């Protein structure tokens, strides 16, 4: 009993002291894992950048299973972390129930809209970025057939695929876009073997540029494309360096900026919806030494021209999630 009391007391003190000492920001990574070379890693890089610039510290948590979501979120909120940033659409429902219980804590969610007075929702216009890399794919393709490999079949990934197909068709209306999804369960984010086989299957259908929006599965797609001597397009982070000279470009989603901004705002973060679009540099395509030889000036000029039109609002890329249809492709 005495031991129990001591331990409880110690735990209480610990909880109390951490609540007083830290209004440290916190970040929760989704199931893909912190170092997925893609989405979550971009979030980590943003947090790291903030820590390096301000000398502050932040808490982080990696999800291990679906069941942990609510527990993890409550634990961080109770520990006094503020603001709490979470990556991934899958947190939507959980956050919706947890946020009202912690009215003094600010939350930020990426890739999902949650309407609560203390939640900032950050969404990206992936269709715009995908449109640009789609144009580039069509310009680089010699066969007139390009491919798209998505991870789990969810509306968000269809938004990537739809924007991509539209970009391809904008350059070459006769082009064929082969669309495949890896699966319908979260395992689809981590199946590089299936990704590689899908890439090979698409190549046999004539595709010579393949865009992978599939998390860890994309590693297999990029590898198979490099082995088979065709081009690939990375996603979320700049993946050009994975196979220098064989990755045409990467559709970058500046999750790092979103996390960095949220951490910078701290407790003063404003709730509501933030759209990170092409204009706000939320999405884009990656150019560096690794793909400089693959992208000609002519290609670049055409893509830049379209980018300028999208920024000015002259060109509107269809957003799959607005009405769950896609004019340029069928899923």
């Amino acid at each position, binding site marked *: 009993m005495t031991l129990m009391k001591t331990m409880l007391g110690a735990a209480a003190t610990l909880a109390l002291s951490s609540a007083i000492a830290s209004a440290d920001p916190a970040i929760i990574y989704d199931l893909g894992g912190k170092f997925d*070379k893609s989405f979550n890693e971009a979030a980590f890089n943003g947090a790291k950048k903030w820590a390096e610039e301000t000398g502050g510290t932040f808490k982080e948590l990696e999800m291990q299973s679906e069941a942990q979501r609510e527990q993890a979120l409550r634990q961080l909120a109770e520990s006094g972390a503020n603001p709490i940033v979470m990556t991934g659409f899958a947190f939507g429902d959980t956050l919706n129930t947890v946020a009202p219980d912690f009215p003094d804590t600010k939350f930020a969610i990426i890739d999902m809209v949650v309407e609560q007075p203390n939640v900032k929702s950050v969404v990206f216009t992936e269709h715009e970025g995908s449109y640009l890399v789609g144009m580039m794919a069509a310009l680089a393709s010699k066969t007139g057939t390009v491919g798209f490999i998505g991870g789990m079949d969810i509306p968000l990934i269809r938004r990537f695929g739809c924007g991509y197909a539209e970009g391809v068709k904008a350059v070459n209306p006769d082009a064929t876009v082969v669309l495949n999804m890896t699966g319908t369960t979260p395992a689809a984010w981590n199946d*590089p073997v299936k990704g*590689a086989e899908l890439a090979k299957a698409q190549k046999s259908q004539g595709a010579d540029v393949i865009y992978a929006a599939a998390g860890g599965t994309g590693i297999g797609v990029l590898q198979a494309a490099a082995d088979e001597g065709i081009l690939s397009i990375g996603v979320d982070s700049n993946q050009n360096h994975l196979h220098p000279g064989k990755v045409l470009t990467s559709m970058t989603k500046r999750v790092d900026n979103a996390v960095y901004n949220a951490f910078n705002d701290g407790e003063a973060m404003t709730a509501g919806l933030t759209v990170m679009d092409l204009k706000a540099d939320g999405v884009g395509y990656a150019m560096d030494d690794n793909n400089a030889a693959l992208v000609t000036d002519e290609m670049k000029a055409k893509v830049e021209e379209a980018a300028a039109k999208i920024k000015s609002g002259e060109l509107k890329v269809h957003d799959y999630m607005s009405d769950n249809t896609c004019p340029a492709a069928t899923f």
Partner: protein
Amino acid sequence: MDYATFLQIFDTTLRLATPLLFACLAGLYSERAGVFDIGLEGKMLMAAMASGAVAALSGSVWIGLMAGIVGSLAFALVHGIASITFRGNQLISGVALNFVASGITVLIAQDLFGQGGRTPPLEGGARMLEITLPLAETLRPVPVIGPLYADVISGHPILVYVGLLLVPATWWLLYRTRFGLRLRAVGENPASVDTAGVSVKRLRFSAVLIAGVLCGLAGAYMATGLQAGFGREMTAGRGYIALAALIFAKWRPWHALWACLLFGFFQSLALRPDVMQAVGIKIPGPALDALPYILTVVVLAGLVGKAVPPRAGGEPYVKER
């Protein structure tokens, strides 16, 4: 739809069926000896990590292969000690090993390489190269059979051929040798084997360790043959599909080959929705992914003959006193 498309699908089938086949044969040895093995998935994952990591460090795929087998054997040994020596519940031991593998592979790979539980991409000699069978190019002009030989049969990593050869070898070992007879007997009626003066524990251990070696080959093939490196959870449930194939095959080696090829064929067909549309069938990909499990349930329900598992399967052997 042309012949070349069919060949491409069969080519993929063979590639995807190989890890299933290794794992299925592994389960066959173990379960025929009376030790259920849910842990195929975990052993494959462990082997994939060990082979990927060691191949990356040493630059040699063969050293990586050895490491994969050792990693898988270590897990097999734990399973053996837990379920044979200490007579623990075989299913629980297997499930536990799967969980351990899921965590420890990422932990070790992260500690070694710091790339998020991934091994660095393998290059050159660290990858298992595809070998061209003799006369592949000479025979190519032969109609029908030529392209089949050159494109489907030839041009795979050596482990694919090892896997195919293991099927007759397993049949011969189980049905034509003294060891095989005893192995099957120990899964049906261990008491009679014990009465004959043969060690039940030793037989079961050897079966479990053979399963370890085979799972090691499966994992190493995935990490160094199909892929260039290990990624977390990269086996993606193939151990369970192999288990389904084993039941579908009713614990027999030749049937295991056909079951694995069939399940591999479903997987490769799921990759080509265009082909299915061309022949006028509209089956959603997820349905094809679920088909192995559905077929297994059908077989288990006794709709297509009777699936009788080894009688002493799942029960630890206790010597009567």
